[in-house]
């Protein structure tokens, strides 16, 4: 009945990559086979739940337990898996995150050897087994991490992949650039200039909103410019995207207008990550349901959705 979906992991490393971004590597004894697009749900180990053997009347640990929820997150936090590999009988997985609040502040304070609770793998992965030879990954900001792992998976199945990576500024781009950092590049060519993507032989097109690195403008504009310069037959291409919702809506529209298959990796606030709390809803087309739409759970029925199913303009998006 019960599974091994919840494991205690040990922090291997947690270096800062660039402004506000970190890469957490966790080692786990038990972790099921996972695929790119799936996510993990992290929390401090539940000391207040496991230290039941201590019951001095002083209540010292109990008080500490509750205080913990003030300084640290109470609920788990969901992160796309950015990479995963076998290490002996164990598994190491990477999570790349940007510090934006209580949960990610807690993560950034973890040092090597710290423990944390890892629930996962959760959610549905990116579908990668189509017959289409070309795969373009379009990410904005901290939508980049799942694309790192996806690029490895795409390389393994022999796709010709390109990673389009956008950030607000150069120092918010969580990849290591090699060679000259040429600002104001056009978006007509993809190069092996980002070390993490180059590892899987994946060229990149970089854009920054302020033009401090790569193409000057948002990543949707870079995608449009590249597509214009290097036309790719719609029937030969799959687009994967992850990032801010407005950016994904742009990419979804771009693909829809051109008849290109597109998969989006969505983000929602979620409490449980497993379908119990019903909080992480995304409105999708469903002709069988009243009003021809219904909510789907980002945690179980996502986070990867077919872009044309998502009702981007619906008030039920409410972002």
């Amino acid at each position, binding site marked *: 009945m019960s599974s091994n979906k919840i494991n205690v992991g040990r922090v291997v490393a947690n270096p800062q990559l660039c402004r506000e971004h970190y890469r957490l590597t966790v080692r786990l004894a038990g972790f099921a086979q996972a695929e790119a697009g799936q996510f993990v749900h992290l929390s401090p180990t539940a000391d207040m739940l496991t230290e039941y053997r201590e019951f001095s009347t002083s209540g010292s640990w109990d008080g500490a337990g509750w205080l913990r929820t003030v300084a640290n997150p*109470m609920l788990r936090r969901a992160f796309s898996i950015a990479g995963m590999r076998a290490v002996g009988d164990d598994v190491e997985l990477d999570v790349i995150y940007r510090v934006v609040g209580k949960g990610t502040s807690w993560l950034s304070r973890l040092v090597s050897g710290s423990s944390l609770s890892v629930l996962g793998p959760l959610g549905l992965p990116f579908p990668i087994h189509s017959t289409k030879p070309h795969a373009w990954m379009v990410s904005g900001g901290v939508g980049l991490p799942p694309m790192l792992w996806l690029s490895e998976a795409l390389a393994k199945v022999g796709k010709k992949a390109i990673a389009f990576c956008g950030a607000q500024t150069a120092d918010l781009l969580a990849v290591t650039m090699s060679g000259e950092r040429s600002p104001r590049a056009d978006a007509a060519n993809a190069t092996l200039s980002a070390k993490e993507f180059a590892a899987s032989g994946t060229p990149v097109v970089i854009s920054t909103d302020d033009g401090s690195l790569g193409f000057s403008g948002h990543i949707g504009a870079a995608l449009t410019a590249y597509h214009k310069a290097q036309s790719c037959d719609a029937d030969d291409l799959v687009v994967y995207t992850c990032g801010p919702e407005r950016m994904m809506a742009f990419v979804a529209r771009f693909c829809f207008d051109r008849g290109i298959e597109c998969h989006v990796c969505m983000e929602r606030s979620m409490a449980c990550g497993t379908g119990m709390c019903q909080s992480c809803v995304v409105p999708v087309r469903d002709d069988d349901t*009243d009003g021809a739409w219904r909510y789907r759970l980002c945690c179980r029925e996502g986070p990867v959705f077919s872009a044309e199913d998502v009702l981007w303009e619906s008030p039920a998006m409410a972002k």
Partner: protein
Amino acid sequence: MNDSAITAAEVDLTVDLAGLALRNPVMTASGTSGYGPEHAELMDLTKLGAFVTKAVSVEPRKGNPPERIVETSAGMLNAIGLANDGLDGFAANKVPFIESMGTPVIVNVVGHSVEEFQTVCRRLDGIECIAGVELNVSCPNVADGLEFGTDPVRLRALVSAVRGCVSRAKLIVKLSPNVTDVTATARAAIEGGADVLSAINTVVGMAINVDTWKPMLANRTGGLSGPAIKPIALNMVHRVYRDVAKDANVPIIGMGGISSWRDAVEFFLAGATAVAVGTALFVEPTTPIRICEGLREYLSKRGMSSVRDLVGKLQ
């Protein structure tokens, strides 16, 4: 160790909820583990005292737009909006799993009129595998826009009307904390014919985004749960027990911020016969098992043979 020492394994955790026998006093709280299958992936549900489902209404409901939850200090706000498949969908899609669950199942019921509550409860009373119905009275009546659960007169009328439709299953009324005097609504529920009271539902609250000046929840307000509300819940359980339920011999299911055996013991001492775990399940789905283990150890170390001997023993 003296001769009368009781081992943790020997401790009796069974409790009686108005005739419903539970193998232990730790249940799930409605809305925190769906209708079973999702939770069963993470925990053996036969280890529960009872399982309480998410709400069921007559018609299907899509629920509120996101954001539906936000974490607050030592708690969370939720405004899911009672999303569910409706009564027919529940009967067709959820009941088969419930039949196989191997633990007593209580179905949470919500309605926007007395008739809706009656329709759902009448149907559920006829489904053998459902041990009880729990009325969620913290929603507005479409007839007057007022919550059933905040006015003793309306609440008594509702419970009394539903009582006529429920003969086999236990009738549980979940009390709202958003009232001036919880003993008045507790008394009304008992007068209406409730077999069991559960307390408390979530506390109405709000969180605001200082960048956008908008509420964090799309519904603007939500229900606060988690450790933040435990003192409120304990006080209400105790007042209901002391002033109303004890003399009426009506058991209380205590809930609100419970995540450890220690929390559970506090609720028993305050007067609860059983407890329910809600928000903690989102973090650690096996919390009920851990609480039972802790209770066994606590009771055995105090030389107590039964959890029932803790109920209402607040000095």
